[in-house]
Structure formats: C-alpha cells, structure tokens
C-alpha cells in the first residue's frame, strides 16, 4: 500500500507521486524524488503547485519531475524536469529560465591543497581582481556585432580559437560547448546590446568562482577516470549567459504569451507561456535559446581562461584541465525510450543536470565506460559533490539529476539572520577565504540559506539516479 504524505503518494523509496487528480488540467502525474522529511516540507510548499502546473502543459510525456533540490521558482519549479513530444508538445522559455545555460565548469589542477593553502588569500584576491563580475564594469572583451554572431554559433570553440583555452576543454563540455540549433537571426537587437560587453564576466546573485579540493573519494575507479585524486585542488566556475540570455527569455515570454491565443493554449501561470515546438514561435525560441546557450559556454570558457592565467601566475608550471562543463537551465531535443517506444522529446531542465549513464554515445571517449560527471555545488561553507550518471536515470528521469543544494531561506530571510562581515570571519576561521561584492550579497548566499547538499545527493544516490564519486571542500570563494 502506498504511504501518503499530504497529497503525495509514496510509490517507491525516494519516489513520491502527485496524482493527476491533484489539480484540474494535469495531463500526467508529478513525481518528486525526495526523502520523507523533504516530502513533508514540500507538501506544504508552492513548488508542489508549480510541479502540477507544468503537468498541465500540452504534449508532456511521462511525468513532471521534481529533483530533491526542488524549491519554488516562478512558472516551473527550480529543480524541475519536463519532456514534451517534439511533434505535438510545447517549448516554454519559462521552463528554461532567464539565465539560459546557467551551469558549472569544474577544473582540476596538478597541485594539492597543501601547495595552495599558504597562498589562498592571494589567490582569491587575484581571482577577484582578474575575473570581472560584469556589474557595469564590463569584461575585457567588447564584441562587435559580427563577433557576437560568431559566439552565438560557435560557443566555447570561439574562445578556444582565439587562444582562450585548449581543444581538450571542448571535449569535456556538454554538446562540445555549442548547440547546433543556434540561429542569430532569431535574437533581438536588445539581447545583442545587453550581451555585447558581458562575455567573460561572472555576474551576481548565486554565481561564483570557488577554489576547492578533493577531501573524500567514494569510488576510486570513477574518481581516477575523472582525474579527482585525494587533495587535488580544483576550481569551480558557476555562471551563465548573462544579460544576453536574460533578454532572450524576456523577449520570448512576451512573444509566446501573444502566440498562445493563436495556438489555443491556456496555461495556469503566465510564466509558463509556451508554443508548439514545431511552430514558428517555438522554433525561433529554440534557435535563440541555443544562441544564449552557446554564449554561456563561451562565457565559462573565457572565465576558465582567466582562472588559468591567475593560477599560472601564482603557481608556475601548473596544469589546469577541464573535468566537465554542464548546463542546468536548458531545453534540448533528445531521444528517449518511453513505454518501450523511442520518442524524440524536447527535454526542459530548470535547475537540473543532464546525467548520462555508462555506455551513452554522447559521452566523451574518456568517460564512456563510467558515465557523465555530474557537478553538484553545495554552499560556500560546506562542500560540493561530483557524481556520475546511471542508466537508471536515463530510464526514469529522462537522464536528469539534481543541480545543487536548493535554497532553504529566502534572500530576505538570509539577510535578516546573517551578518555578511561576521560570516566572512566565521568562514575564515574554518579555512575558507571569501570575497564578495558586498556583505549583503554574501549574506544572501550564506551556507545556512541552503539545504545540506549531502542530503540531496544521498537521495539521488539511494534512488539509483547517480553514483557518488568525490566530495570537494572550498578554501577560497569569489562571489559575483
């Protein structure tokens, strides 16, 4: 017999179903991948209603999924995954979010925490100095309109071709750092103007650079395959498509709101504005979104290049190489087997990470036996995780897992309960040197504002949707 938690029915350990009867208009159930404690919290939360709203969208297949880091966003919940048939389903800009291809790049180095710790303050200060936040300070790169069109099409390759990176970086980016669907003609002048000076900038909010080290290895074989040895120093970059992507989402939500009447689509929340994937509006959005995704990959490539410059300056001879680069706000055309039949789907992941299992043909050769590295940042005071994808995730969640810890406190609540300068001092006592643009922005991103990412990861691992590889502990953090 199924255990009931509020409106949720437990169908298996860590798998709770929100039945279609929960809300009028649901076409499929919702599925939450959580433990019982989280299920009880979420049963009272707005994110459950958002999960149900997504289940109302035309052409949705299987279920509206919520990962264990789910929390209320706007339109789609953050930590949401939904797949729609490309022949009869929709694409929704709100299902990707404003920060298109917000994502994470993890780089490993050839040095250890023992080498870096004596220099961590200097290293962090140099990272903050040399990696622009982009808050009207502009990046080093000011692109012409022609350059920006090239970035939109070529993605990370654009930066590598100009000496900002190594060919190997591309090998370890999802989609090799560029989606083929990009068409600059689908991008507005406004988006171009908003993005022209922002390539190679970190941004604000929850974006960050983190110097960390491998403090625990859970699977020797996987960790060795990913190059993550005990005490290896790594750098994590969290950023996205900046104002360029934000404007593309703004433009297309408005376009789709107007187009919905024409297409006879009604949505329970206007942020879920959508159009049939095969419509003119749907295709143009997908092309523009791909441009923003490629901008984001180019952005993280340039940021990685700036990080390499800083690391080489302080540690001559160091090698800094990409472990993997993942998007966690994106929609992609993918092939999945649903009820025994292969289907082409447009899979939306908003605050969720793609997770390919061993043997998947899309994996880089070096990882094909092991599965995809899944990068799960935690918070600046505790730890982050590297996981590996499983075949079960491909079967159960359209190959998706969590993307982070998930917020516990709102930004306002965090600012009320945390003093930014005290936080810096406390973290310093723990051996973590933190720099931010302001104490208020640090308070908003305080560790206590986030769930413990280890609990999120445990659910993923215990549910069989990922394997635990290694844990990373921060020693230096630059917040945007």
């Amino acid at each position, binding site marked *: 017999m199924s255990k009931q938690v509020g409106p949720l029915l437990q169908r298996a350990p860590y798998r709770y179903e929100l039945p279609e009867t929960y809300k009028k208009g649901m076409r499929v159930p919702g599925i939450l991948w959580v433990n019982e404690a989280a299920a009880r919290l979420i049963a009272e*939360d*707005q*994110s459950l209603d958002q999960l149900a709203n997504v289940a109302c969208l035309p052409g949705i297949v299987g279920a509206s999924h919520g990962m264990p880091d789910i*929390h*209320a*966003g*706007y*339109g789609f919940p*953050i930590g949401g995954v939904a797949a729609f048939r490309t022949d009869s389903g929709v694409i929704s800009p*709100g299902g990707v*979010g*404003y*920060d298109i291809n917000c994502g994470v790049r993890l780089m490993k180095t050839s040095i250890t925490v023992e080498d870096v710790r004596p220099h961590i303050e200097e290293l962090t200060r140099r990272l903050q100095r040399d990696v622009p936040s*982009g*808050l*009207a*300070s502009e990046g080093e790169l000011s692109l012409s309109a022609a350059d920006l069109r090239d970035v939109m099409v070529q993605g990370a390759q654009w930066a590598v071709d100009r000496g900002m990176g190594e060919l190997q970086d591309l090998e370890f980016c999802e989609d090799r750092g560029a989606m083929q669907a990009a068409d600059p003609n689908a991008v507005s002048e*406004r988006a171009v*103007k*908003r993005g022209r000076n922002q390539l190679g900038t970190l*941004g*604000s*909010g929850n974006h960050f650079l983190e110097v960390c080290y491998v403090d625990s290895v859970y699977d020797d074989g996987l960790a060795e395959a990913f190059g993550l040895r005990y005490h290896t120093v790594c750098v994590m970059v969290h950023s996205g498509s*900046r*104002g360029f992507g*934000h*404007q593309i*989402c*703004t433009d297309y*939500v*408005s376009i789709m*709101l107007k187009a919905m009447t024409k297409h006879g689509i009604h949505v329970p*929340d*206007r*942020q879920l*504005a959508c159009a049939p994937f095969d419509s003119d509006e749907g295709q143009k959005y997908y092309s523009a979104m791909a441009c923003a995704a490629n901008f984001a990959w180019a952005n993280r490539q340039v940021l990685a290049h700036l990080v390499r410059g800083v690391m080489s300056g302080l540690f001559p001879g160091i090698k800094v190489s990409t472990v993997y680069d993942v998007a966690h706000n994106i929609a992609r055309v993918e092939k999945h087997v649903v009820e025994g039949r292969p289907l082409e789907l447009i899979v939306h992941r908003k605050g969720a990470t793609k997770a390919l299992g061993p043997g998947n043909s899309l994996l880089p050769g070096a990882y094909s036996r092991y599965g995809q590295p899944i990068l799960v940042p935690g918070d600046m005071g505790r730890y982050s995780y590297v996981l590996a994808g499983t075949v079960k995730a491909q079967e159960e969640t359209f190959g998706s897992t969590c993307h982070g810890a998930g*917020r516990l406190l*709102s*930004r*306002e*609540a965090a600012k009320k309960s945390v003093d930014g300068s005290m936080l810096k001092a406390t973290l310093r006592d723990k051996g973590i040197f933190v720099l931010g*643009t*302001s104490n208020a*922005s640090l308070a908003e991103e305080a560790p206590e504002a986030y769930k413990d990412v280890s609990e999120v990861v445990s659910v993923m691992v215990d549910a069989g949707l990922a394997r635990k590889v290694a844990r990373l502990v921060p020693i230096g953090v630059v917040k*945007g």
Partner: protein
Amino acid sequence: MSEYRTLDHAADLMIEAWGAHLEDAFGAAAKAVAELSGTQGNGAVNQVVVSVRSADLEGLLVEWLNEIVYLISAEEVHLVSIWVNCIQREDQGWSCRATLQFTKQLFRTRDIKAVTWHSARVEISGKIVVRFVLDV
C-alpha cells in the same frame, strides 16, 4: 507619495509597491527596481520618454518594469527621476507613458535578470497595490 517594500520569496525577490493612483504605484515599482539594482552614476542628466502597451494591467506592469531593467542593464543608465505621466485604457488594452531622467551609470551592485510574469498583480481597492517577482 509612493512607496515599496520587499516580501519573502523562496529564491528571488518579491516586491510590493503602492500609491494613490496607478501612475504612483507603477512609479514606485520602477523606483524599487532601480534602487535594488544599486546603481550609482555621474555626469550630465539626460531625459527619455518611454511608452509601453499590454493587453491588461498586470502585463503592462511587467512590460513597463522590464523596460527599466533593460535601460539599467543594457543602456547602463543611473535613473535619477521616474515620472509616470499617464496610464490609460485603450482599444487593445492599456498603455503607460513615462519620462525618465538619467545619468551615465558608474556601477551597479546587483544584476536583475528580469521581472517575471509569475505572481504579477495589480490590486485596485482604494489605494493601488502592485506585486511582482524579480529574478535575481
């Protein structure tokens, strides 16, 4: 006189702004967006007239505030005054016309990605109260 306050929201920022008239409330909302961006500026003061249209008042609010976001993030202005001249009903919905004075932006402390459509509300009951969520 117009005012605003921030409300609790799980991941982003929810704003409530109010005024005696629609123009006051929309002006207060724009002031909230500008102040939360944390801009500073200097130099000559320039002026621009902004007009937006939408099918309903909630849509008008979102479109109007996204103009403010665009000016701050793309045109890199520091807004020194916001005058919402007129909000009126038209054949196809509603329109808003405003006069903005601005200087060159030196820096800002926060990127506001967009004003979202989720939870956008315009309440008319005595005073005008508007609510919206900023993606930060």
